């Protein structure tokens, strides 16, 4: 059974939500527009790590259930990293 993969599986809706969350609160720190290839579903692990570290979560760089739950908490809309 693909146990390790199962632990990492994230519903598409959750993934989209998490991507939007990271874009909102952990935007790229460069002012140069970044062109991403269409269809890329990856959320940069370093940003997940940054968020987990900020919130005192276990730092895995993966979108686990605790990280998702915290993303869903109501919060301020000001980004967490430099423009």
């Amino acid at each position, binding site marked *: 059974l693909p146990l390790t993969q199962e632990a990492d599986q994230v519903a598409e809706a959750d993934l989209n939500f998490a991507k939007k969350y990271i874009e909102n*609160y952990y935007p790229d720190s460069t002012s140069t527009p970044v062109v991403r290839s269409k269809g890329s579903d990856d959320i940069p692990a370093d940003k997940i790590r940054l968020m987990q570290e*900020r919130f*005192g979560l276990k730092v895995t760089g993966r979108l686990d259930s605790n990280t998702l739950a915290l993303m*869903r*908490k*109501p*919060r*301020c*809309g*000001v980004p967490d990293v430099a423009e």
Partner: protein
Amino acid sequence: YSTFPGDPTWKKRKLTYSVLNYTPDMDRADVDVAIEGAWKVWSDVTPLTFTRVYGEPADIEISFAARSHGDYIPFDGPGGQLAHAFSPAFGGNAHFDEDESWVRDLTGVNLFLVAAHEFGHSLGLRHSRVWGALMFPTYQAMDPQNFRLHPDDIEGIQSLYGPPEGGEDGDDSSSGNPEAPTEAPSTDLCDPRLAFDAVCSLRGETMFFKDNFFWRKNPQRRDVEKDPISAFWPALSKGIDAAYEVKADDTVFLFKGHKYWATKGNIIQSGFPQNIHSLGLPRSVKSIDAAAHDSNSKKTYFFSGNSYWRYDEAQKSMEKGYPRKIAADFHQVGAKVDAAFLNHGHFYLFIGSEQYEFDSRTKRFIGIKKSNSWFGC
């Protein structure tokens, strides 16, 4: 705490704000109270003042809006983003998501708590990593009546604007030395040289103030807790001159220079600080050295220099026949006292590391003890 890139701040100290519209979720008066209270959180710990203006441009504009609202940072409907605010570099305006359920209590999203957070951004603070800090990015529901600004927030905002003027060492004429002592007060309660600035009761505990700290003695606990004054009263973070409690009103009065504050628990009451001369003290009195309240007679004693006054809390007026010389009525005591405390019919006058004990009714001298005898040293 953290600040925005380049540490943008407001260059003036007197800021204005306007409320462009209201949420239909709350009474307008409740919105006004929440907004005003949120500004007070910051004005209490900085030299900044915030004045509301109507029908004219303001430094900081406050509005409620849903979804796209003209700043290219759309809100996201119920939940998620509650609000956002711009740093001083971008005007400081604060926007609140109208799709949230705004309330004055904790049945929805408390407007006061969110506004206080957003105004931190408007003044130049970014998100803090410290759990419990106001500037932590996620909403943390807490009783707004018992709200206390976290030391991390105080340190952050004072790194940008400094501490408040007047309440501490600004226009306080009692201090001839503009440089406040920076050395930490003695943490050794049993140091025989220990002296207190003020002593008072507070909801059954006894508070011993020294510089920017106080010790709390709870009769039900063996250990004595030590806290920074800023944890309870940020506006008085550098210390106080005198304090007394009127138990019947659940109110403690704190004195610093020519100002005094009324507080219930750690909540400074609106309308304070006031000038000590409003109590009926003469203009020649620049500050209070010590104060003590007698709950039996409902009289409060104020000590300043070599004199003392007696104030009738019921009549709200200073009694006739005062001031009197301290030495004339409290034999053994010299010209000046540092702190005073009235407890179980005994009057304690603190002078340096010693306290003089009297019968509060007859003023009969009982004896001298070390000031820290309260701690079983």
